[in-house]
């Protein structure tokens, strides 16, 4: 019934338009831009340029507070951030210059009756410049980018890394520490049974000391290597504060590694984080909801079904000693499964 009502409203509006147009049509004026329209739209285009500049400036000032903290929570993330700042600087510079040229030229050369446009069809010199300049800049960006990428992706020379398996399923994360031997027991969907939700092969000698958890704890300053598996569809393990992301693919294991450098407690004291969470808590207070504190998060970033938007796991970074104590308190897989 309501749909009918909306369709009716649509028709009324359409009819109104129709009538309006009929009036316009009666004038039968020329439909090519006149000198006056060139002038008006030239000015308006200058206005659009100003609007875009205003929007960019406003977004950059106002939008800053919502961004991720500038402080990267991982060693590898610092490299990524450096590259990001350089690239962003370049982008903003080019954006400001080219948009200025577009709107300023449109305004300056708006049509005037009787003026001759300049027949200027080619200039090899100019074209060479704006081919060579981007080429040089991009070469630098590419080389720097690849260097960073290789550093981040290279997991081969980590000393005594902590090995953790992160396991994805609709719509929840689980995790498993490699335990005393720092080797993960084999996992496969065929072994999923009852409380053994990650499908660990309990006959594997590396499996018994593995430690299953529902909350990630990471030691500050020690390289962590994550192994990712998924049991059903594609998921993506995304830890934005650590500048870390990789997909979890059913049928294979993917990996990613980083060295946490900022504990949760330290990040809560970070200026950016404080500003962001003050704003969030103010919002919550106005709605009458209790306030929250900053926590690192692992979230799903690959469409995985209806509850994709709410697939999360808390991540805690702490000093190595606290971490070791926490890990000791956790039950091993053998204890969990055999009980």
């Amino acid at each position, binding site marked *: 019934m309501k749909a009918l009502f909306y369709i009716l409203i649509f028709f009324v509006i359409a009819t109104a338009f129709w009538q309006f147009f009929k009036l316009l049509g009666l004038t039968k004026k020329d439909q090519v831009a006149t000198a006056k329209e060139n002038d008006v739209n030239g000015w308006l285009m200058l206005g659009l340029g100003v609007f875009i500049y205003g929007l960019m400036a406003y977004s950059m000032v106002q939008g800053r507070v919502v961004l991720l903290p500038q402080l990267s929570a991982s060693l590898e993330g610092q490299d990524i951030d450096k590259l990001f700042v350089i690239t962003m600087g370049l*982008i903003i510079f080019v954006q400001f210059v080219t948009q200025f040229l577009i709107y300023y030229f449109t305004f300056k050369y708006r049509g005037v009756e009787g003026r001759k446009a300049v027949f*200027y069809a080619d200039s090899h010199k100019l074209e060479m410049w704006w081919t060579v300049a981007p080429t040089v800049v991009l070469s630098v960006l590419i080389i720097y980018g690849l260097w960073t990428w290789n550093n981040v992706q290279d997991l081969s020379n980590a000393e005594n890394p902590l090995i953790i398996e992160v396991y994805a399923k609709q719509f929840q994360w689980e995790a498993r520490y490699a335990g005393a031997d720092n080797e993960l027991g084999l996992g496969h969907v065929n072994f999923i049974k009852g409380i053994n939700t990650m499908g660990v092969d309990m006959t594997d000698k590396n499996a018994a000391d593995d430690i299953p958890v529902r909350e990630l704890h990471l030691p500050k300053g020690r390289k962590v290597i994550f192994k990712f598996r998924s049991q059903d569809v594609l998921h993506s393990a995304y830890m934005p504060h650590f500048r870390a992301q990789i997909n979890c693919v059913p049928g294979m294991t993917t990996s990613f590694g980083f060295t946490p450098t900022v504990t949760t407690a330290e990040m809560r004291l970070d200026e950016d984080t404080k500003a962001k969470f003050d704003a969030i808590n103010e919002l919550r207070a106005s709605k009458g909801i209790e306030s929250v504190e900053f926590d690192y998060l692992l979230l799903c970033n690959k469409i995985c079904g209806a509850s994709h938007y709410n697939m999360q796991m808390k991540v805690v970074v702490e000093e190595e000693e606290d971490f070791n104590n926490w890990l000791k308190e956790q039950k091993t897989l053998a204890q969990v499964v055999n009980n």
Partner: protein
Amino acid sequence: MIAKQYLITGMFMGVIGVFMSMLFRLQLAYPDQSFSIIEAFLGKGGEGGQMTPDMYMGLVTIHGTIMVFFVLTAGLSGTFSNLLIPLQIGARDMASGFLNMISYWLFFLSSLIMFLSIFVHTGMASAGWTIYPPLSALPQAMSGSGLGMTLWLVSMAIFIASSLMGSLNYIVTVLNLRTKGMKMTRLPLTIWAFLITAIIGVISFPVLLSAALLLIFDRSMGTSFYLSDIFIQGEVLHYKGGSPILFEHLFWFLGHPEVYIILLPALGITSEVISTNARKPIFGYRAMIGSIMAIAFLSTVVWGHHMFVTGMNPFLGSVFTFTTLLIAIPSAVKAFNYITTLWKGNLQLNPAMLFSIGMVSTFITGGLTGLILGDSALDINVHDTMFVVAHFHLVMGISALFGMFAGVYHWFPKMYGKMMNKDMGYLHFWITAISAYGVFFPMHFIGLAGLPRRYYSNSAFPMFEDLLHINKVITVFALIGGLAQLIFLANFFFSIGKGKKAIQNPWKGNTLEWTTPVEHMHGNWPGEIPEVHRWAYDYSKTDDNGELWGGQDFTPQTLPIRKGEEEF
């Protein structure tokens, strides 16, 4: 005729696509409020005026599919290739009228199936427009992967057949049916763009068809091309040995060239419109052709930049970073050439010209952030966030849409023999341009805050709660921008009937289509097909004394080179 059919079908699909986006923008900005319009249109997916997560996923999926394929591929390139190729190269018709007809009717059929798929009981396809398996392969994983997904695949398979037939026809026509004197180096840039677009379409669309076929096998015949080791709803499925990453490779081998299949026609159209309305030759004609070719070539070797974080070998990531960032070079050349064309022109700011200039602006704004997404190291932290959504909507969505609007305003006289109303055109441009920036510029910041795309709601994480006010701003702009398209539709249909009758060459253009009679006729020209003597961009050409040749600021391609004149 076929051009008009493509355009109107594309517009119909466009209305649905845009309307869907308005509905899910409501959900993103006002997650707790109920809207009777949502209940009215979404039925049980919007009970109580709030849409369900399943419905949200379905809307974003079909919005993407419709806009990318049905509006910006078929609606844009189908319309203008069919309209302009014969007219601008001096041919009586396309090489094969029959292929042309099948291509349209297959497109119509695939549109129809896609449209009907929205209404199936188990929900429309909802695994995202990229339909990554296993999500799209298993109805157990989400209900949209049932009948909705089957129809999606059938519709796309037909669409690909239609697109291939169209593309082959465009290529053959451009290569073989050019009139006397129309050398390749005298072709307008529109035709160059359509030709190269058709070529990359022929190269890449069949790969999508193979991807879709294998997915159909996995879904209904029990094969394991993409699936392996899956435990879902309490049971282990039989699939063994496949990999979803194979699908991603096949999909993006089309998916990335697809961006340029959408964008190149818009670049061709705007080159033509800007040159005509600036009353100046397009700057660097040969460099423009060179960059179109370079972009097209590179577009087929960069697909892996969509897959940096899929678990693909990091070495491949390095290769694709290298090839991807290279695309910035021809793109920069194009952008600077556009800007130089504006310099010292005498700009006739018709609605088509405004949209074209707007396109140059959004092309740069959206394209620049490609430097971040194309760089594998930086992509790690912005991959699949709203930053990506902002990037590709500006660089290919809005830019291509602006190109399409420019084309419609500019060549409406050639389609219907009437002029569109310019006042409505101006109003349409101003509202659309401001809302486009209002929607997609702030969206970058939501992405940089770490918000993933395809999130039904961002209230499940406290760290995203402060993004709500930005989402509201975006939604308001989106609603205004969406409604403004009604002005365009009204203007379009009104002008078909009641528009002012067009004169033969309203924009004082050089190209051949403006030498045909106002009323469209079979065979395009009443007598002989005119012969071409020069390139398409002799605007404001002067003789040695600095006087305009022949006292007018344009020289149609059909005029022979005058005594003492140098051919450019």
